[in-house]
């Protein structure tokens, strides 16, 4: 049922994500992806506008290396470890997507609607991607972390603030998936 070149099973994937977090802790670091956005803002000179970006970003270089690795990993996985058999969704999900005129997976990770050159430079899709990204960037800094920092690391360390943040993640996500997306598409 499972193939190495298809969708990896949830228990293998979850185990490996937990292992990544534990490895970074063993190295004396904390797993957290959204902090890199702050670091990149600092490198770009945002410290001129807010002291939030005036910190010793060089101490965060290790995390940028993790990001570089993650990008290479994404490249390897898509180009060498995939046979196009993945992303088999619940047929009910596919039917809902059809109603919103969002193309069904066909083995793609993302809809053509959000990736094709024709689509992403239409004002609607460009604005959708930009605004969605803005919410993710703003919200993760406001909450002090994202899925990796709160949902995985913080929850594993039994942190109440992380539980509150994760509840927020799901409240927001449910509103977006059930109300915003049908409104937009």
């Amino acid at each position, binding site marked *: 049922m499972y193939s190495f070149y298809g*969708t*990896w099973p949830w228990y293998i*994937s*979850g*185990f490996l994500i937990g292992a*990544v977090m*534990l490895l970074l*802790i*063993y190295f004396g670091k904390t797993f957290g*992806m959204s902090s890199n*956005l702050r670091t990149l803002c600092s490198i*770009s000179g945002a410290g001129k506008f807010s002291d939030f970006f005036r910190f010793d970003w060089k101490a965060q270089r290790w*995390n940028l*290396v993790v990001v*570089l*690795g*993650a*990008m290479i*990993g*994404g490249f*390897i*996985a898509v*180009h060498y*470890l995939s046979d196009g058999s*993945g*992303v088999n969704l*619940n047929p009910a999900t596919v039917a809902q997507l059809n109603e919103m005129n969002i193309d069904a*997976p066909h083995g793609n*990770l*993302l809809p053509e609607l*959000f990736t094709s*050159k024709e*689509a*992403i430079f239409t004002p609607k899709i460009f604005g959708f*991607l*930009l605004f*969605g*990204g803005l*919410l*993710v*960037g*703003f*919200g*993760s*800094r406001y*909450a*002090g972390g994202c899925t990796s920092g*709160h949902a995985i*690391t913080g929850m*594993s360390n039994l942190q109440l*603030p992380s539980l509150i943040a*994760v509840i*927020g993640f799901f*409240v*927001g*996500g*449910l509103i*977006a*998936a059930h109300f*915003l997306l049908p409104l937009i598409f």
Partner: protein
Amino acid sequence: MKFIKYLLVGILFGIVLTKSEAVSWYRIYEMFQFQSFHMFGIIMTAIVVGVIGIQIYKRNGVIGLDGKPIQIADKEKGFKNYIIGGTIFGLGWGMIGTCPGPIFILIGAGFYGIGIVFLGAMIGTFLYGLLKDKLPH
């Protein structure tokens, strides 16, 4: 050379998130519709593995690679910033289906349109830096 281990961990992370399809907009949508166990299974397994691992670290006083006993800083106490910030994050996550890790992974994988999401996320991070003293925390 000291950075090579971070590069390797990053590569593993990128491969796992792609092959588990946690980077897929479709999988996030399906999760928020409660139409698949897949994403819930991934997150719950990662947390269970994490809880067990961290307990092993703490109870045995495991020495980290830097020669010091492993310590994990507690998150700052608070409520408003976590619930409001978390909900704003969730709204974006439910729309574009990418949290910060997958933004980078997808760009690396060749989905250059996600560069627009990255640009948005940078603007969002910058805006937080400008506004943070005026926001409830």
